[in-house]
């Protein structure tokens, strides 16, 4: 094999893994994600992960804070969300099933949180678009302290109530 053709072969290998994968993943997976996205735009949410029985979606306002997190905790949190969607057991370090109740009028939801490195991703569980769904409403980036910021905790509860007041009747 001549060096010229060898280098061409190597180049195509690079393209093969980067370029083609990029094209292929776009063509193969974007339609499914687009459909999912469309479903949740009405709730001002974006899909994070989905399994057969459950999914996690995130409100746009929370997503802005989420993308500002460092890569490592973000990666960890996404994996924890994937496991939650699969119904796997989560450790107390990964998930807190009771961050308090969100109550107003007929609305009564349990606030829960995915956790890592002191960061808390607040949300609640309900049935939405035909599936058990964890709706993330707020992010506590834990910049000041490792403990939960009470201001953000209360804001998260308000956001749950706002969401439920706006979309509560849908698909429950």
């Amino acid at each position, binding site marked *: *094999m001549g060096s010229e*053709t060898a280098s*061409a*072969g*190597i*180049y*195509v*290998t690079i*393209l*093969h893994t*980067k*370029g*083609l*994968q*990029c*094209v*292929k*993943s*776009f*063509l193969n997976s*974007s*339609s499914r*994600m687009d459909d999912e*996205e469309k479903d949740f735009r009405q709730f001002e949410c*974006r899909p*994070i992960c989905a399994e057969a029985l459950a999914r996690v979606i995130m409100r746009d306002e929370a*997503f802005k804070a989420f*993308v500002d997190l460092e*890569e*490592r*905790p*973000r*990666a*960890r949190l*996404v*994996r*924890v969300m*994937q*496991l939650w969607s699969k119904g*796997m*057991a*989560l*450790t107390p*370090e*990964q998930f807190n099933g009771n961050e308090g109740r969100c109550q107003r009028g007929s609305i009564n939801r349990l606030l829960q949180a995915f956790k*890592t*490195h002191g960061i808390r991703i607040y949300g609640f569980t309900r049935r939405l678009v035909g599936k058990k769904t964890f709706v993330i409403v707020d992010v506590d980036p834990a910049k000041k302290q490792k403990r939960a910021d009470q201001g953000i905790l209360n804001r998260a509860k308000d956001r749950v109530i706002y969401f439920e007041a706006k979309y509560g009747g849908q698909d429950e």
Partner: protein
Amino acid sequence: MNNDLGELLSSSTFAEEALVVDVQSALHQAMENAGLSRADLARRMNVSKARVTQMFSDDCPNLTLRLVARAFHAVGEQIEISCRCTRNHEKQADHELVKQAVRASENVVFGDWEWTWETEAPLLTGEIRQEALEPQIIGRALQSAEVAWPERKSQRERRQRAEDWLVATRSSESDLMLAQAHG
């Protein structure tokens, strides 16, 4: 958003964290099944409780394979490592896609070519310019490949998506002209 998450999901950081989270979750589940507390596990492993706590922490700097194996053994479980070898499966599919793409755009981009299993990539024998082989061109090739997709029903939609993608990535006709000139 999908792009942001897509990048994250394909990063080495995610691969690392995903494995750690999976191990922690699996061990937690195994302990729950066996009715063991962390103190029980520490006793069985003959390590301090702090060390077990550290195994479940976010950073878990001590989570070595040896420790993981000992922990699962102490719970009465065996851990098996299985590699999904996603790349191998993808490669097989990619081979076909590349072949079809090359065939479809033979006159446009690639010139003569032959498949080589040695490098698992098309061995290009024609004179080509590297910039002609950008993803946009491959996208164009796939777009024009009639046989590229098994679900013929959605071929038109996929082609449209490819077209949209090409526009979004600012692929221009001049790219194609350049490719043609050196094809």
